[in-house]
């Protein structure tokens, strides 16, 4: 690769230069260079994000809104700017549809609470899939418990794809009010066929929520093209800070939904008898928001856009292909999920070795993978395993890192042989 190439030739990602943007990648772990293959749990942060947060705190910080002074006005502008940036990122038609939350878990809980209790008629059902993260299971179980809403689970195939016939069958009786499904599985890497899901669900009168925690990190999301009703995003996987996430929802739904939490910033007027709510999205943002984190998230969005989703998707597709080939070649390694359309997450088990032991042995060589049930116990059960090891990739992941994983796994296999 030519050294005079601009950081990012169109459609191409120069991983060596990208890595320079992430200070942590220079660290060593147990004396070995860090090989971070746990980005699906949380991504590392580029310098622009770190700097945006630092600069806010060093030069331009005050509480947002209501402040009639310079620092507050400037901070409010920066904070509100993230709404615009996020709306642009996911092509939301209206910046007021961007609700700030802590993470996608809160986004889904907000929908379960406000839409679930406020709009969804009693007796209706929520339909999830068999590959959901606990964050897209438990809120609906809690809604079932509190409100009687039925919970249905669409089956998945052995390849780890949504079983579309089974999915559609569960909608047939017209009792499903909401389909809540992941846009990309954090265990299998599977992308679900989002457009088709929406078409079918809408045809049966159901709204659709996508858990976009993973998907928006890896490919362009266009909520208008998807035609979905809710979309949940968590900032820390998108190279942004912790403590900030986004719920996108159609404005007409947000208008009708009752608030989730009450407090400062979300009211229009208050007496002890009656309160009226502020306009959306403020109605859903009680209390002092994660101001510094929102500003950091804007930098992360800018960073992702500067690389471009095309380049990201191409880079990750090539890594994933390489990883699938490399790991499959190792005797005793079994990969979970063989979806046609998949992203940069590879879960596997190794014969005769428990995933925790595998993870510890890899860690000893500085290689960070996740091991466990990945907050998806029912999915583990579906595949008859207790836990898996999972390698997941980001913009900074290299082929060499995957080779290091493969080589080390060979030794791990020998170790436990």
């Amino acid at each position, binding site marked *: 690769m030519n050294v005079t190439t601009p950081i990012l030739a169109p459609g191409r990602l120069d991983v060596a230069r990208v890595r320079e943007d992430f200070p942590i990648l220079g660290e060593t772990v147990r004396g070995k260079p860090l090989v971070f293959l746990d980005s699906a749990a949380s991504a590392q942060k580029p310098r622009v994000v770190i700097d945006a947060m630092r600069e806010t705190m060093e030069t331009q910080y005050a509480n947002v809104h209501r402040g009639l002074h310079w620092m507050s006005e400037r901070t409010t502008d920066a904070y509100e700017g993230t709404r615009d940036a996020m709306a642009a990122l996911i092509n939301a038609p209206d910046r007021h549809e961007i609700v700030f939350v802590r993470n996608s878990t809160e986004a889904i809980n907000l929908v379960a609470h406000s839409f679930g209790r406020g709009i969804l008629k009693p007796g209706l059902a929520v339909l999830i899939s068999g590959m959901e993260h606990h964050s897209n299971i438990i809120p609906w179980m809690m809604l079932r418990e509190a409100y009687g809403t039925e919970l249905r689970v669409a089956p998945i195939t052995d390849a780890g794809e949504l079983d579309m016939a089974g999915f559609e069958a569960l909608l047939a009786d017209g009792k499903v009010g909401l389909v809540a499904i992941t846009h990309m599985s954090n265990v299998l890497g599977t992308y679900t066929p989002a457009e088709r899901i929406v078409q079918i669900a809408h045809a049966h009168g159901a709204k659709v929520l996508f858990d976009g925690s993973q998907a928006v990190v890896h490919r362009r999301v266009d909520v208008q093209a998807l035609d979905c009703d809710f979309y949940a995003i968590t900032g820390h996987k998108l190279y942004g800070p912790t403590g900030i996430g986004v719920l996108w929802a159609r404005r007409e739904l947000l208008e009708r939904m009752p608030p989730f939490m009450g407090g400062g910033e979300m009211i229009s*007027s208050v007496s002890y008898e009656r309160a009226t709510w502020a306009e959306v999205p403020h109605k859903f943002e009680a209390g002092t928001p994660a101001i510094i984190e929102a500003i950091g998230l804007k930098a992360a969005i800018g960073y992702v856009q500067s690389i471009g989703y095309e380049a990201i998707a191409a880079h990750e597709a090539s890594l994933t292909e390489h990883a699938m080939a490399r790991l499959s070649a190792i005797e005793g390694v079994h990969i979970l999920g063989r979806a046609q359309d998949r992203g940069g997450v590879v879960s596997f088990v190794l014969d005769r070795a428990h995933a925790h032991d595998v993870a510890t042995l890899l860690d000893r060589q500085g290689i960070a993978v996740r091991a466990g049930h990945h907050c998806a116990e029912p999915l583990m059960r579906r595949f008859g395993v207790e836990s898996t090891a999972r390698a997941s990739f980001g913009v900074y992941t290299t082929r060499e890192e995957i080779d290091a994983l493969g080589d080390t796994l060979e030794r791990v296999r020998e170790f436990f042989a």
Partner: protein
Amino acid sequence: MFDDLRDLYQEVILDHGRRPRHAHRPEQVDATAKGDNPMCGDRVQVFVRYAPDGSIAETGFDARGCAISIASADLMAETVQGRTPDDARALFAAFREMARTGVCPECGGEKFDEALERLQPLSGVHEYPSRVKCATLPWHALVAALAGEKESTSE
């Protein structure tokens, strides 16, 4: 010490803020609407009386708020008098641009020249973004009243 502030609080604003001429409910009210800025607590109710030809015969208001919002309501009442609802809306569009940016180069043409000159003292708010809504709030209420609505917010 506050010389710079005279940009914002010009004498005309202080004067209209202190002694508004139109802070009352006309005898006859054909349309009215409230405006409300929850972010700062400013509230205004605007009353409109139409002339037989449908133009604005008289505007009054009842406001609780800062000098800027009251002066703006008062100057609004002066400048929309005798105008058609459409012209009042167009004038608001021009005024809003001025309040946001300090200028409005492409505004209105001749028929608004004098009105905008009258409103010009309020253009200083553009340097204080959180105060822009103080200046535009009464206009939002007016436009809501003209549309037959009951409420507006300055959002």
